[in-house]
């Protein structure tokens, strides 16, 4: 069961819309915010709350790429690989980070601290190359800056 506090938060979200179902994306986000990822039981509970079939919640979770259905590292590093970042050396920085963290894109470090992913344009192209770690954007990246940023994360 989700804690009552979260259930209440989800019920408040429902009020913004004409149908309960509209709250599904935000409900999933709330769960992910609390737990880091979403499990089958969470989807079933959300389905029940919103009067949906569990499979419909599952479809939504699977469609939107930002839902984690598996645990990710404490710091989820997402490096942009799209055009403006690539023009300014994104690939180079991605392999630099793979070496630095000793993992490949898509993997998590042994200690569960970092997950490294690549993503498409994050709307920060004027300050390329860039990455996002959890909610925060880091822009105008260089090798030195990346090293500094990662060192600064507990």
């Amino acid at each position, binding site marked *: 069961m989700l804690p009552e506090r979260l259930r209440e938060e989800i019920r408040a979200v429902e009020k*913004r*819309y*004409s*149908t309960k*179902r*509209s*709250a*599904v*994306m*935000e409900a*999933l*986000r709330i769960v992910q915010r609390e737990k880091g990822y979403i499990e089958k039981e969470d989807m079933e509970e959300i389905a029940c709350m*919103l009067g*949906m079939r569990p499979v419909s919640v599952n*479809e*939504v979770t699977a*469609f*939107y*790429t*930002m*839902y984690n259905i598996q645990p990710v590292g404490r710091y989820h590093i997402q490096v942009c*690989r*799209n*055009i*403006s970042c*690539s*023009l*300014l050396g994104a690939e180079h920085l991605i392999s630099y980070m793979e070496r630095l963290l000793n993992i490949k894109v898509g993997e998590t470090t042994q200690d569960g601290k970092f997950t490294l992913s690549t*993503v*498409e*344009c*994050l*709307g*920060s*192209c*004027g*300050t*390329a190359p860039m990455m*996002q770690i959890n*909610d*925060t*954007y880091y822009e105008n990246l260089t090798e030195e800056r990346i090293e500094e940023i990662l060192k600064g994360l507990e």
Partner: protein
Amino acid sequence: MEKVLLKNLGKPNSHKIDTYIQGGGYRAIQEALRHTPDTIIQMVKDSGLRGRGGAGFSTGLKWSFIPKDPTVPKFLCCNADEGEPGTFKDRGIIDNDPHLLLEGMMIASYAIGANTAYIYIRGEFAFGARRLEEAIKEAYERGYLGRNIFGSDFSLDIHVHRGWGAYICGEETALLESIEGYRGQPRIKPPFPAISGLYGKPTVINNVETLSCLPAIVLKGPKWFASIGPEKSPGPKIYCVSGHVKRPGLYELPMGTSARELIYEHCGGIRDDRRLKAVIPGGVSAPMLSADEVDTPLDFDSLAAKKSMLGSGAVIVMDETTCMVKVAYIILRFFSHESCGKCTPCREGTIWLTKILKRIEYGEGRTGDVELLESLCSNIFGRTFCPLGDGAVMALRGVLKHFRDEFVYHVENKRCMV
């Protein structure tokens, strides 16, 4: 030109309601409320404002399709999905001047008779979404949102809806599906959203920048707006410049500023004073211009005449060191990643194009691959459910039009010519 869209960027506390009010904010909505909704629609028509989300459709005309029946609920959706690679203007407004957008939304909602509005913001913009939520809260506290705003009989609620990583949700009907709690897959049009949109009700979808033009149109008048830039696509425009320029960033300039002026005067020219090779004028869906087309004015009609488009106003600049096969590969990889999977030509076609481009890029191209790309393009174009597949094809055709020889060289020599 006096800035109206980015005027508050860089001001301390530009996102706070007091700063916005001190700069003359929330006067336009009060002025608008003194007129009938139809007068506002006419004003926006007269201004010549065309949508800044990509298609360039007349905003006033779009609003006028909304049925007038007061008993039917109507919705406004602000499109802040901003996913077109190269684009970062809506984020600039949202992060720095959220009240400008809110005031624009109030004006639009009043004009079309909507009492509920949603801002669909892409999930990655966590900072922007919080900014908007704080700004909305401030506006409610002043009584600028909610019941009977500014003592009028007009009421409005605005909510933030976060996307969660799907480019296709920027397409307006996919956006509506997403708000309704479904996968973001486009709907068949017609019916158009103006007749049957969110929850089957009349709905207007407008881009952040489009809505942010409205306060200035109301206060300064449609004639002022129409006098800026070309007659048929007037107004101020935010260009998002990225890539190989000395000073990338957001530039608010008269619509129709040439790519040359933008790159060489405003952005300080090409990095390391190299030579320009190509410019993508409106986000990756827009076919690229070659260096000798750099005098093209960046507006809807001038770019359409060059078989490209203004799109989202994302200007991506590439210098002589750029490998065009790699550019094409990155762009198509993006489209195949973002194809929503609903229709086969787009889903399968973009995967194939990406595969072939990848092998050409990695020196494993086969004889006939370039022709194969071209024939795949013909089999996708015009056969997809929504414009995503067409965008992918137009982008690739744009690269091939100017740089086909580079692809052939890659295939024959297993390496790059630049």
